[in-house]
Structure formats: structure tokens, C-alpha cells
């Protein structure tokens, strides 16, 4: 299963109350984050990593982090979101494997070598389109795509604390959920 993140660049302005005139690239609006160089073009969005907790926009227009306590809460929330994303990936894999246990056998007559008729059996492993497991997989897929884009947007804030939260949450989630998956695959499957 391909575990690569979606690398699509869907730029959405996190602060929807920003008037469009601020998108002009030669604006000199200063961002109060550290690491801003004294170029002519000051970016509205930080384009380099920084560590800070003043006036950090997080995904939605109402979510602004201003204090260290709020940053700690955001760290925990992002950590849990990344962990949940890894768990969702593993859960979808195991659900898919479980629902594909039902194998359909399909026999059809085939002309044989001496003019006899042989029965050829086709084995199809899959899901019907309107079956419940497939609908569940689709819903979980949508949730997974949305959460992966949220994590990408969080990483795009370039805030060092939040980026570390994403990475640590992904690692912890992988550690907790993939361990369980590997052990189950070990004992219950006879041939890999």
C-alpha cells in the first residue's frame, strides 16, 4: 500500500479576513516572527522554519495561538491528530484485508484438448461496489484524505513546534498501531 503523502499544493489562505490587496508581493507588511530578513519582499506567510508562539494562525480563521499555554494545547492536539492518521491508515488496511476474505469462485466451460469440455474456475477477490465494506472504505478514505491535507497545512505554517508535533505524532502512531498489525499478521497468517 502506498504510504506516500499527497504532495499537492492547494494553497488556501488561512486567514479569510485578509483583504486581497495584501497579496501584492511587494508589500512591506512585517510579520512579527523571528528570522525575517530585511528584504524588500516580506512574505505574509513565513517561508522558513521558526520557533515561536505569538500570533500563530492554525488552519481556521478563529484559531490563533497567542500564548505558550495555547501552543502547548495545539501541540497536543496536532500530536493526537497525526497519531490518529497513522491509526486510520492501519485500520483501513486491516479492514480491507478482512473484507477480502470472501472469495468468489466462478466456473466456466472451456474447450479442452480432445474436444472435451473442461470447467475452468476463476477466483476473484474483491468487493462489490455497493457492499457495506466498500462504502465504509470510501468514507474512511475521504476522512484520511482530509486529515492528510490538514496535516500538510499544519506543517505549512512553518512553526517549529507544530512541525515537531506532526513528526512525533506520526512516529508514535506508527509505533503503536503498526506493531499491533505486524503481530496479528505474524500469528494468524500462515503464508505471507
Amino acid at each position, binding site marked *: 500500500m502506498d504510504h506516500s503523502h499527497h504532495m499537492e499544493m492547494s494553497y488556501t489562505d488561512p486567514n479569510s479576513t485578509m483583504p486581497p490587496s495584501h497579496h501584492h508581493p511587494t508589500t512591506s507588511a512585517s510579520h512579527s516572527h523571528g528570522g525575517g530578513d530585511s528584504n524588500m519582499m516580506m512574505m505574509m506567510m513565513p517561508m522558513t522554519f521558526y520557533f515561536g508562539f505569538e500570533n500563530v494562525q492554525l488552519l481556521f480563521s478563529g484559531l490563533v495561538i497567542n500564548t505558550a499555554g495555547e501552543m502547548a494545547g495545539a501541540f497536543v492536539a496536532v500530536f493526537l491528530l497525526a497519531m490518529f492518521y497513522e491509526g486510520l491508515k492501519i485500520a483501513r488496511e486491516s479492514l480491507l484485508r478482512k473484507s477480502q476474505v470472501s472469495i468468489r469462485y466462478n466456473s466456466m466451460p472451456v474447450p479442452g484438448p480432445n474436444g472435451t469440455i473442461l470447467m475452468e474456475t476463476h477466483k476473484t477477490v474483491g468487493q462489490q461496489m455497493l457492499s457495506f465494506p466498500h462504502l465504509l472504505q470510501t468514507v474512511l478514505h475521504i476522512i484520511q484524505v482530509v486529515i492528510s491535507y490538514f496535516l500538510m497545512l499544519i506543517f505549512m505554517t512553518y512553526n517549529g513546534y507544530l512541525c515537531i508535533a*506532526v513528526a512525533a505524532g506520526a512516529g508514535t502512531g506508527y509505533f503503536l498501531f503498526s506493531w499491533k498489525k505486524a503481530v496479528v499478521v505474524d500469528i494468524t497468517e500462515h503464508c505471507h
Partner: protein
Amino acid sequence: MAMHFIFSDTAVLLFDFWSVHSPAGMALSVLVVLLLAVLYEGIKVGKAKLLHQVLVNLPTSISQQAIAETDGESAGSDSSPVSRTHHRWYLCHFGQSLIHVIQVVIGYFIMLAVMSYNTWIFLGVVLGSAVGYYLAYPLLSMA
């Protein structure tokens, strides 16, 4: 910030100290990003191979422990090799989780580099992914 791909020799990538001014610097940055993409593809394949190796080497001991448990025997003398195997399994899995974190971080770094909207960097990432896939994926089917 320009919202379209541009050809340019100036860019600031990821960190404050990584600011590119000249064609030579841009060429070097494209090379670094290319190698990063090759490394990303390589780590993907490496993780899958590592998992496969671990699963092939360890199932016999874990199934032995499962058999011992179902037989109801108190694993007195058998417990030490089994616990060592479990210890090895935890170490292997912890190492894999670290590799997973590195993979996630490199993936996000590549995404942020592409976000600079510099066409050279983007082409470097695409070429690096192609080269990395070309070099690494045949190793996946080898046992």
C-alpha cells in the same frame, strides 16, 4: 508570494540560512533537493524490505511461544529465548518507527521545497523521485 511557477535564481528554501542568490547556488540547491527525493524513495523501499525481513526471521519464535501458551505449559526454561526474541522484536520495531519519522519529515521538507514555486526546484524533485524509484524499486522484488 508568487502563486505560479517561476524560473528564478533566487529562492529561500526551508531555513533562513538556505538562501540562494546565484545560478551556481541554484544548481547546488537543485542537486540537494534531487538527492533528498532519491533518499525519500529509497527509505520507502528500505522500510518495506526491513519489515519483510523481520517478519520472515521472527515468526517461528513467536509461533512457538503461542504454541507453548496454548499447551498450558509454564515456560520455565523456554522463556529466556522467547523474551530475547520479543526484546529483539521491540528494538526492530522501534528502529522502524524512527525510520518512519524520518520518512515523514523528509516528505514534508520536499513538499515545502516545492511550495517555493521555483521551477528548477520542482524539476529537481520530480527527477529525484524518478531516479530514486528507478534505482530502489527493483530491490523490492528481490528476496
